């Protein structure tokens, strides 16, 4: 496991890494489930005790690694409040779907933090993974009620950062998105005892 963890002790960086790992799998899973890219470009991988699909497209991989390394830094510095995976129609740039990943910052284990002289959490890793697995299964189940995407679609990830956050190279400021006539569905949340991740999908309700 990549996170630094010894005897149920999760550091801030480790927690951020767990979050980013979840984000990677969740974004890939959404891209696969929503049919944005052909299914043959995805490769199955075992994670959280279930089979998840990861894109083999080098462009997507590159994009996600760039995004998630920067996001990890920001999460570590408590700069990010929300990440939004936006699915839009390429022809008219209309937003069709928005997957919000709300990040909340928690205290962790206060006693252990004092002892270790840094903020750490004491949640069992297996339990965290169990929670993440539940969320991933819900993500997979959303396909049953989300509207069919029958146009050429693409995606973007918007990071809702604090205003005092510097804009790094290759990054740009974007317009906040809003879906007309939106319908929100709140999925399960999971927590690493340092961060709490809330997943919400909002989609355009077709009358």
């Amino acid at each position, binding site marked *: 496991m990549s996170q630094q963890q010894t005897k149920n002790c999760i550091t801030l960086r480790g927690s951020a890494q767990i979050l980013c790992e979840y984000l990677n799998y969740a974004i890939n899973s959404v891209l696969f489930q929503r049919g944005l890219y052909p299914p043959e470009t995805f490769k199955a991988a075992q994670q959280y005790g279930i089979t998840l699909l990861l894109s083999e497209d080098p*462009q997507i991989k590159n994009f996600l690694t*760039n995004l998630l390394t920067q996001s990890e830094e920001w999460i570590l510095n408590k700069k990010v409040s929300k990440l939004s995976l936006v699915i839009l129609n390429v022809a008219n740039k209309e937003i069709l779907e928005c997957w919000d990943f709300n990040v909340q910052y928690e205290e962790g284990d206060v006693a252990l933090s004092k002892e270790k002289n840094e903020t750490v959490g004491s949640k069992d890793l297996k339990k965290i993974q169990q929670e993440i697995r539940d969320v991933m299964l819900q993500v997979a189940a959303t396909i049953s009620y989300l509207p069919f995407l029958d146009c*050429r679609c*693409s995606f*973007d990830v918007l990071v*809702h*950062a604090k205003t005092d956050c510097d804009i790094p190279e290759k990054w740009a400021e974007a317009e906040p998105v809003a879906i007309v006539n939106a319908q929100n569905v709140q999925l399960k949340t999971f927590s690493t005892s340092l961060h709490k991740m809330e997943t919400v999908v909002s989609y355009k309700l077709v009358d």
Partner: protein
Amino acid sequence: MAKEGDMSLLNDVLEPFRRVINTDPPKDKLSASTKLIFSDSNQSIKEDTPNLHSLGKRKSVLNMSAPETPEKRMRSDSTSNTVSAPPSPWEAKRLKIDIIAAKAQIAKLEARVNHQHTIRKEMQILFEEEKTSLTEQHKRDQRAVSEMEERLQLIRRREQELKDEYNEAIKQHMEKKTKWDKEKNELQKQIAELKDKLLESNVSSKDQISEMKKDMDELLQALEGAQQEVEMLKKEVTRQTSRAEQCTTLRTQVEKQTFELQQVTSKLKEIEYERDSYKDWQQQAKTAQKRLTNMAELEKEVIRLRAAERNLRDAVCNKLLLEEQVNLLTTKVETLQPMQQQLHEATVKIAALESSLEEWTTAAKNHGIETSRALSSALDSALSSQLNAVAGCSEAQSILAQHTEELATLKFERDKINTKLNDLQIVRKNQESLIHRLQKRLLLVTRERDSYRQQLDSYERELTVSLSGEGAGGAALLAARVEQLEKALQAYRDLLAHHDHEPAAKALESARAEINKYRDEAEAAKRDVIKLRAQRDQLQAHLEKLAAPTKVLHLADNPAAAAHKQMQVDLESAQEEIKKLKTALREGGSRACPEEMQQLKTQLENSRIKLQRMKEEFTSSAQEYRDVCYMLLGYKIDRTGHKNYRISNMYAESSDEYLTFTLCDDGIEMVHTEYSASLGELVELHLHHHRSIPLFLSALTMELFTRTTMQQEVQEC
């Protein structure tokens, strides 16, 4: 003593054995001793045989032990010695005892000897084993030594060989070195030669290039000439194509003219036909003029119809009068309503006042107001009457209440009447619309009447012939027609009366209008909902912004932007392609693909040639067929027109002698001609009697043949 002697003897005997044991004797010594022993034993056995009976016990002992001991011989000698001298009993006993003791000692000694033997044997075995092991070791050592020597020799040989090889290698190396040096020198020489050659070739190539350039210039000039020629040829080709086009246009014109000619001929035919028909029309016009004389009657009819129309107009006027009356009535009703109310109120008041007056008068009569006493009493009575009046007042109040109630009821009634009035007004409107309709109907009727008149005219034209013949019948027909027309009029009137379904239609329309209203409302509500949702979303976004001031960041090169760019690129390329295709379309497909045009032209030419050939073939084969028919059957058949055939015989005297036949639906028929009229007999016999044209024709040929031959014969004669 004997014991000692025995012991010494034994020692003597054992001495060699001991020596053998001590000085580890070789095998041959041991074998000699054994030999000795065997010879002794043989002797002892030979000697023992006569004394078997006395020495039975000992012999068994001896047999048990080693029989080869030398002690036996000696003892047997001693026994023989004792037997020789007769002993005394004591001595015998003592001897016996000695013997027994000696025997025991012998046994012991034998046992010891045996023991010694066994030891010796063991020792012998041990020594033998040691010896064998030593010999084996010796052999191994020898072998090892020999092997080592062999190896040494081998190594020496190898050393020698390696030395030889080394020497050879050195020699080869030296030789190769010398060779390579030689080769190097040769190659350097070759390089020098090649360099010289290169220089030479460079010079020669330069010369060649200049020559080539000259050739090139010449060729270019030739090419230019050829291009000019090509241009000339192209011009000629264009001229030729234009000529071809002109030819085609001329052809089309010719075709058009032929078509027009056909049309003109057809028109001519039509005109002829029309001329014929015009003659007929002239005749008909004459008859029509005759018919015009009968117009008076028709005019009478018209007058009748006009009267009917007047009647209809009167009815319409009546309806208008009725409407006016309705209007007057409604105004009257409106004016009368308040008067009625006042009347009602007045009558009610009068009734109440009359009742009160009666009460008062009765009270006054009862009290008698004329006297002063009566005044007091009247005062009392007045007091009482006041009381009464109070009571009356209350009564009056109650009456007032009643009146108010009545008023309310009257108002209600008034409202009712008003509603009735409205209804009446609606009815009036309906009637007005009906009048409109009726007017329209009238127009229709008049038009229909006109049409009927025209029809009548046409009928009369048709009937003029019969009418001119018999006037009374015509009058009857006209009366019947008038009746029919009246019936039709009645039917129209009924239809008009039936067309009072207006209210239902109006209700429907109002319902539809309501539906439209509700629909509009629903749409407005939907719009409101959409607006409200948008507002809600905006407010939510605003709230989020207020809650946590964030700025939205994203990677500049995200997949959405990439996809958008790709799409724009695709769009531009598609538009460019569209432009290209459009321009190509404008330029025209003919210029775009002249090769195809050329191919098509050649194809057309080929097909034309083919058609021409087919025609020629057809005409030639047709001619051939005709000739064959003529030669075989003797008749020349010509097709003069559609389904008309002219046949002339081979032996006919002149070209005027021909028969014509037409093809009908049920066979072929002969048409009457001047020549056929001259063949009355044959026609009668073969066509009317036998009903066979071939027979007729063959009979004709026979007759003609015989006639010609007869003539020839006559001439010959």
